[in-house]
């Protein structure tokens, strides 16, 4: 998923976040106190906006964070901080769906009396139209999240005539919607919780709606949006809270989001009390100052993400597994962490699944003493493997993005490759082009630096998406299996694990841990580190809560 789309989980911050969650859930007396926090305006800043406002099209964490309180799906992730934030709860549906027909049929009963911000009541017509619209607007995940719905094939082939006949069946009188899948999908509720499955009014145009706000059912609505200047978000007048977990009524009356300036200026503005929060990460060179000048205003949380360096398993020298393993042994993961800003901003990692992610079990094969965690590089082993492979002296080009961290890592990998006896070079490309460039096999990229952020908390979202045979499309700019890794045995095991998840999630997670190990043994990538999210808030903001899925829950916060 998109670089900036970064659901995450609290690790060592669990304690802090849990305390806040506990406080929020405490006693009616506290609830009364919360009312005192109602009102005020939150002022958010960001260097740039992120394009279209259409929730069926936009695929960036910046706007997904806003969709959390603007739109609803049939189900949604719980809007609380802490580990509970990855739980799915009923949202526009009155309860979680009844699953029948061996996990292929989901029946939802809609809540009654829910209104869109234009005052119109939400009905089954809107639900059916919204699912069709995902395909009609050529939604980015139409072919990857929602392709399992009956009739999705035709919709992908001819989007304009999409009906999903047989896939989405509505009973308007009873207020129920039935979704039929081609095969059981244990991750289907996660996919329905994504903003791409938001329920919009049936009359919404079947084209990308661009900068014009579409009415939603959330606690707030967009009053105006100019991508080059600002967005103004106000309370949805037609909203009344139906579930605090799914869509809490927010504290603030208005949210003003301005776009422009620099990260540097945003930090100053927050310290001066001219702004309340910045979307972009504060510049690394200001962090030391911030940690002493304003320690209470900084919030850190590990993300469900990884920085990694895919090695093209179809191009020399990385078509030899020993070379890939050698590089994994040779890199100093502590050095990589310092390149990203130090242990406060990242933690070393040598496996695919991020810490505390479903299916994650601490394991590290590529270290001095293989075991649970990484300790130090094993250069002797690496040299020996390179020697055995007979690839010494070959040329390797590392393709990096044009930001400081990516370039720094590229230069570091270049030095490691030189130590191992290769002739290494770094090629830097604009970050927005690099991501599609490294995916296309025609560009013959051997080694590159990239990131992946989870869409939803399921191991397959990392392993199957990044290293599954289905994600490898030679000659296409959209081929997310950048390493071109397709191992029949592992692919079958991943498919089996997905299926197993439908009946026995615990056993499936155990199997994912083993698959994680098996993938790392084949070493199609260099895991670099797990990044952390830094939120800098002004002193007037209270009730900070961090959700795995939406990051800082803006609507849960209050201002003094």
């Amino acid at each position, binding site marked *: 998923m998109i670089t900036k789309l970064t659901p995450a989980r609290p690790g060592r911050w669990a304690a802090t976040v849990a305390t806040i969650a506990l406080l929020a859930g405490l006693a009616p007396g506290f609830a009364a106190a919360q009312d005192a926090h109602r009102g005020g305006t939150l002022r958010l800043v960001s260097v740039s906006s992120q394009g279209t406002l259409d929730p069926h099209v936009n695929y960036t964490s910046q706007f997904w964070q806003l969709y959390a309180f603007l739109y609803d799906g049939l189900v949604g992730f719980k809007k609380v901080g802490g580990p509970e934030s990855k739980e799915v709860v009923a949202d526009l549906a009155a309860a979680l769906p009844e699953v029948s027909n061996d996990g292929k049929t989901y029946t939802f009963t809609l809540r009654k009396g829910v209104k869109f911000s234009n005052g119109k009541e939400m009905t089954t017509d809107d639900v059916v139209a919204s699912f069709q619209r995902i395909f009609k607007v050529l939604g*980015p995940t139409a072919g990857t999240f929602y392709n399992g719905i009956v009739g999705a094939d035709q919709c992908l082939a001819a989007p304009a005539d999409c009906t999903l006949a047989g896939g989405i069946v509505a009973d308007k009188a009873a207020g129920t919607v039935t979704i039929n899948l081609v095969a059981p999908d244990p991750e289907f509720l996660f996919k329905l919780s994504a903003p791409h499955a938001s329920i919009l009014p049936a009359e919404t145009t079947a084209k990308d709606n661009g900068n014009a706000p579409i009415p939603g059912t959330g606690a707030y609505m967009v009053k105006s949006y100019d991508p080059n200047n600002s967005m103004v978000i106000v309370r949805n007048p037609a909203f009344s809270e139906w579930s605090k977990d799914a869509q809490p009524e927010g504290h603030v009356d208005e949210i003003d989001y301005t776009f422009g300036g620099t990260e540097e200026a945003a930090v100053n503005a927050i310290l001066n009390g001219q702004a309340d929060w910045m979307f972009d990460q504060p510049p690394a060179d200001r962090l030391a100052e911030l940690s002493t000048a304003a320690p209470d205003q900084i919030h850190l949380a590990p993300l469900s993400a990884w920085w990694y360096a895919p090695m093209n398993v179809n191009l020399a020298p990385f078509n030899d597994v020993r070379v890939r393993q050698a590089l994994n042994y040779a890199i100093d993961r502590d050095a990589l962490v310092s390149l990203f800003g130090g242990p406060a901003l990242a933690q070393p990692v040598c496996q695919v699944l991020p810490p505390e992610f479903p299916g994650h079990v601490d394991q590290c094969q590529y270290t001095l003493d293989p075991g649970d965690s990484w300790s130090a590089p094993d250069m002797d082993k690496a040299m020996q493997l390179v020697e055995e492979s007979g690839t010494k002296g070959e040329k390797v080009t590392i393709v990096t993005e044009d930001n400081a961290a990516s370039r720094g890592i590229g230069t570091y990998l270049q030095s490691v490759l030189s130590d191992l006896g290769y002739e290494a070079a770094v090629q830097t490309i*604009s970050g927005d082009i690099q991501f599609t460039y490294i995916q296309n096999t025609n560009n013959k990229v051997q080694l590159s630096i990239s990131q992946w952020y989870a869409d939803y908390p399921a191991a397959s979202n990392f392993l199957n998406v990044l290293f599954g045979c289905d994600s490898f499309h030679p000659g296409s700019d959209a081929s997310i299996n950048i390493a071109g890794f397709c191992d029949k045995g592992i692919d079958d095991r991943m498919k089996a694990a997905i299926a197993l998840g439908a009946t026995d999630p615990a056993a499936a997670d155990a199997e994912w841990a083993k698959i994680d190990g098996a993938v790392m043994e084949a070493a199609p990538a260099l895991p670099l580190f797990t990044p952390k999210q830094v939120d800098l808030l002004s002193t007037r903001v209270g009730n900070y809560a961090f959700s795995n899925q939406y990051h800082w829950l803006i609507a849960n916060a209050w201002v003094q």
Partner: protein
Amino acid sequence: MLAVILSRLARMVVVMVGISVITFLIFFATPGADPAARIAGRNAAPETVTAVRHDFGLDRPIWVQYGVMMRKMFVTGDLTSFVNRGQKIVPTLTAAAPVTLSLVAGAAVLWMALGAATGIIAAAFKDRLPDKILMGVSMMAVAMPVFWVGEMVNLVTQSRLHDTWAFSWVPPLGYVPLSESPARWFLALIFPWITLSFLYIGLYGRMLRTGIIETYQEDYIRTARAKGLTARRVLLKHATRAAIIPVVIMFGMDFGVLVGGAAVLTEVVFGLNGVGRLTYQALKVLDLPMIMAAVLYASFFVVLANAVVDLLCILIDPRLRRK
């Protein structure tokens, strides 16, 4: 006169067509430029990428795409971005233009006034203390990069001394439309104006000083002095008037280029979302429609400013009128 204007217009069209074709070709020659996969989103299915490519007309021959883009930009006005899907290019550009115009016009007034004063005073006191001080400061102004000056100004006014009596009046970074509040518009632009004009004051001051000193060697200056004119009259009416021509020509160039987007560094540092920042953002994400519109907009202003300057020169220098 009509013929002059028509030939000017014809030249402008030729320049703009040439620039747009070159921009277009460079874009499609860039590796990895194909926007279809980027528009479709991360991990999009191949069917989706194909559908998007077709929807945006990216599967049509390149000259057809060029024609369609020009038609959408100039005839129907509904050209939309490749990156910020649904964002209409022409209204976005027209919304950003007043910001850049306010910044550059204000700075231009400052730098022409102060630049001229610097040059004239320095020339009048040639090789004496005021000359040396002014030329030293000018050299510094020319040598300091504008983004650094801007960040330093911000450091002082927004961070380190923000809470003191000297700078507590400085509003937060950003633009306030003139129509909303002229006073706040003015306050918000004071430091951006100073920052942007600093370099040009130095540059123009040095140029004018050299020009005046050279002009002092001319015969007509000697004649003027022989007639018994005062030193001040010789300096202002005769020497400066002749020496300012190259400065005005350069002003036309600089003004056009800055309005067209070259003030990007000042805009970004001060959070002014003008044409320069728009162009910079479009370049960063390879947003072809926005790049095309911004480039054509910039070339229009450069050509226009040059035409205006030619007229101005005729007004200033009677010798040009006789030809």
